[in-house]
């Protein structure tokens, strides 16, 4: 179930990026991000009220104490959009996807090890294989399509 959720989330990242980049094209990049978050807020509020009204989510065992960095999620999302605007146009699009993934997975390995208290070599070997596969396909893409330059907003805007 969790595996399916994670795969679905990945698929939605793509849809979200495509839709938000087209939105950004019409209204401007950060105006698009604003609309994106505002629509998300307007959706999540009724979801929250429904959940608490019908007691769909057991909130009784919640600590309600989060470390300060737990509140930074949205700020990271905005930083990612800003960074993509600067960085992505400067590197070939095929490799930007590989590099971003590499940064993601290495950070994931480090944080997972810190959280669990031990380093899982299986995850590291898996990450290496996945990166190799991604790199191989990126090269095939580059050969068939040419190194088309990416629009900066195609990579970052859907993120959060």
């Amino acid at each position, binding site marked *: 179930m969790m595996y399916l959720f994670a795969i679905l*989330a990945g698929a939605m990242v793509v849809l979200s990026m495509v839709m938000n980049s087209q939105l950004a094209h019409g209204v401007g990049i950060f105006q698009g991000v604003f609309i994106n978050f505002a629509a998300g807020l307007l959706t999540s509020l009724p979801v929250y009220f429904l959940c608490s009204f019908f007691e769909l989510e057991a909130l009784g065992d919640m600590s309600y104490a989060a470390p300060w960095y737990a509140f930074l999620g949205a700020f990271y999302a905005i930083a990612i959009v800003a960074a993509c605007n600067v960085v992505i146009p400067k590197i070939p699009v095929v490799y930007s996807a590989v590099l971003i993934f590499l940064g993601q997975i290495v950070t994931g390995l480090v944080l997972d090890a810190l959280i669990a208290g031990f380093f899982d070599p299986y995850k590291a070997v*898996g990450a290496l294989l996945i990166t190799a596969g991604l790199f191989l396909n990126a090269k095939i893409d580059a050969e068939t399509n040419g190194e088309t330059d990416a629009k900066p907003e195609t990579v970052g805007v859907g993120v959060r």
Partner: protein
Amino acid sequence: MYQASAMAIGTLITLMLFANGSLQSAFGASRSLVIIHATGTLAVLVYLLVKRASFKGKEPVKPFLYLAGAMGVLLVFFNITTVTAIGLTLTIALGLVGQIIASSVVDHYGLFALEKRRWNMKKLSGFALIAAGIAVMAWKA
């Protein structure tokens, strides 16, 4: 230099997943969704006001594009539930699989009025490596 910056963007994405996951551990999913989107809306609004950005659109936008944010709520829900359940690394790896499937479909059929890019059989070798990587990761997870 820009290569390192691209990797830094990846780091930021994982930090975002980690932060949102930590929020869900403390407040539960439905409250976290509100907190994440409220802070995001406010932060971007402040940014736009400071920059004195114009809210007049450059060109008309298809109305359904305004709904991307609503789908984003489901996306964040999936992410925060999986991150807390199976960890960051596996969530990221499986997310990549979803991204590849979705982008292949969008490209092959030219959805969202994008240029059609036909599915390339050669890429199966790369996918085999990616599948093997996931299998190794999930082996002991």
